[in-house]
């Protein structure tokens, strides 16, 4: 059991290197089916990296490999300069306390209130913090995530889809992570809610100094908030860069993605907004 184990000392220093995530030669297989073959990716500190790719191209599997939920068949994954593939349990716990994950459906514990959901990681990692402070932390995290304060006492089933995403984000931020993983945060939100979520992500990144690994299908999100975009196709990352750089590459899939009708519309709306 990893209950109430302390992260090793010295882990509270913020990561000063340039690349919080470095993936080298990653291979993932499910039986005979190869999801990733020799996939490499480097994430810069302080950026929002968008990850795009067709359905089933292995975006979520990549995220699960980085956060240690999926054991890769081969390859090296370094998070905060430490290899996550052969970390010992104590190191792994230390790393886990430094990242937050928002799963696609929010993955809130349905039998706990939103506040209790946020307290779970706090209790798990820092049992020495008093109950009063813990509840205060939960409350301001809820409000930082743009929810009204009374949402703290609500159960996930009482929240709308957009509020549930925000509550999930609040739980992901519970431990003040340096690294935030978002799996399709705007999927299933109405355009207004999605735009608000985008600006929230950007705001939080700036105030909290986060590095964000963001899986998305939402072209508006890519144009609005992503510093760079990584494209997964043919089982590897075929290109990483800003959107203009990607369009230059002339890869047929990338071309179709950004110059298709939806891609053009998103770009036009962004250009209008810039003016």
């Amino acid at each position, binding site marked *: 059991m990893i209950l109430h184990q302390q992260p090793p000392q010295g882990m509270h220093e913020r990561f000063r290197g340039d690349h919080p995530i470095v993936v080298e030669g990653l291979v993932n297989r499910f039986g005979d089916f190869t999801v990733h073959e020799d996939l490499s990716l480097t994430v810069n500190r302080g950026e929002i990296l968008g990850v795009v790719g067709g359905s089933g191209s292995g975006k979520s599997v990549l995220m699960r490999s980085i956060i240690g939920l999926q054991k890769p068949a081969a390859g090296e994954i370094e998070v905060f300069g430490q290899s996550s593939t052969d970390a010992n349990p104590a190191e792994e716990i230390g790393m886990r306390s430094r990242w937050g994950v928002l799963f696609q459906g929010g993955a809130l514990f349905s039998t706990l209130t939103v506040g209790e959901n946020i307290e779970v990681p706090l209790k798990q990692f*820092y049992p020495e913090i008093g109950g009063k402070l813990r509840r205060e*932390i939960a409350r301001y995290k809820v409000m930082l995530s743009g929810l009204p304060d009374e949402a703290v006492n609500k159960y996930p089933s009482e929240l709308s889809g957009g509020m549930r995403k925000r509550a999930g984000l609040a739980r992901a931020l519970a431990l003040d992570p340096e690294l935030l993983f978002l799996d399709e945060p705007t999927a299933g939100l109405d355009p207004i809610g999605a735009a608000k979520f985008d600006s929230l992500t950007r705001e939080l990144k700036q105030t909290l*100094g986060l590095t964000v690994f963001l899986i998305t299908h939402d072209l508006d999100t890519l144009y609005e908030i992503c510093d760079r975009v990584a494209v997964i196709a043919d089982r590897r990352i075929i290109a990483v860069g800003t959107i203009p750089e990607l369009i230059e590459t002339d890869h047929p899939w990338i071309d179709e993605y950004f110059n298709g009708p939806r891609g053009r519309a998103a770009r036009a709306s962004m250009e209008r907004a810039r003016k």
Partner: protein
Amino acid sequence: MSEFAQFSVEEDGGSGAILVLSGPWLLSTIRDVDQRLASIDGPIARIDLAAISEIDTVGAWLACRLTRQHGAQVTGASARAQRLLKAVEHCESEHEFEPPVEPFWLRVPRRMGILVGKGWQGAFGVLGFLGEILVAIATLVRHPSRFRVKALIRQFELVGVEALPIIGLMSFLIGIVIAQQGAVQLEQFGAEALTVNLVGRITLRELGVLMTAIMVAGRSGSAFAAQIGTMKLTEEVDAMRTIGISPVEALVIPRILACTFMMLLLGFYASVVAIVGGAVVGDLLLGIPFWTFLERIKEVVPVHDLWVGLIKAPVFGLIVALAGCYHGMQVKGNSEQVGLRTTMAVVSAIFAVIVLDAFFAVFFTEVGWG
């Protein structure tokens, strides 16, 4: 030593005290600072953040709370600290985090009322469910082509065939225990030979069917509740309704039929295996040859004992299936409900089976099948 969050109070002439925070003010290094901060007696005029090596939102929140408590000014904040302070400043709330706890003299009657109300609702729910089943049966009688033969056969397999090994083993062991324990007691009267009567009558009449019903409730009744409950959660049941398939016809009827019919066969099978178990003990411990034991069963067990068992078995099967399907259909909201309803399905099924068994025992004795 700056491994943990530190603070000290310094006097500064006339303008009041300065609270100097130092070290890392992070979630991981805060420890019990919160409690220790509460013991400072004010007034604090300034809070100096210049010596802080690291800060996150928790540190900022504590600093922000101090400024509110003492009306103090923040000085020496780094750019990052200022950003964080600004972000958490807006997160004050007058709302209590936890809803006020109800006093116990109000809570008990309220809970009681809810229980009674739920009891009524439950009774109506069961009635409504039975009605739905009757309607579905009537529809199926009129449109036999809508009957799901494949689903029924699949349930036959799941409830019946796959239960054979475990029910066989259980019954065999029960037969052995009854014969062996019975023989020990009957020996005191020199009546070991009556072990045959004991094993034959008790297994055919009571235990074969009862134990099988309990096993089926645990194996299949729980599975019905969990399957249907999960399908409710994933909206599969709603999807069926929109396509025009009645969930009762598609999910409940095949399970009820399969469970009722299979209980009949399983109950009989269990009794037979238990008698075989008894015969083995007879052969090994009592010196009654195996085949003689079985011959004697024919002579000493009245045939109505078999009928009693065979009448009870399908009724028990029906109850187990009804409880499982009913509780499955009642699942709403979250995954906890699935577990809760599964437990309720098994407990209520076993309870109902035992109560009915007592009723049957009296009834059959009264009608002369004693």
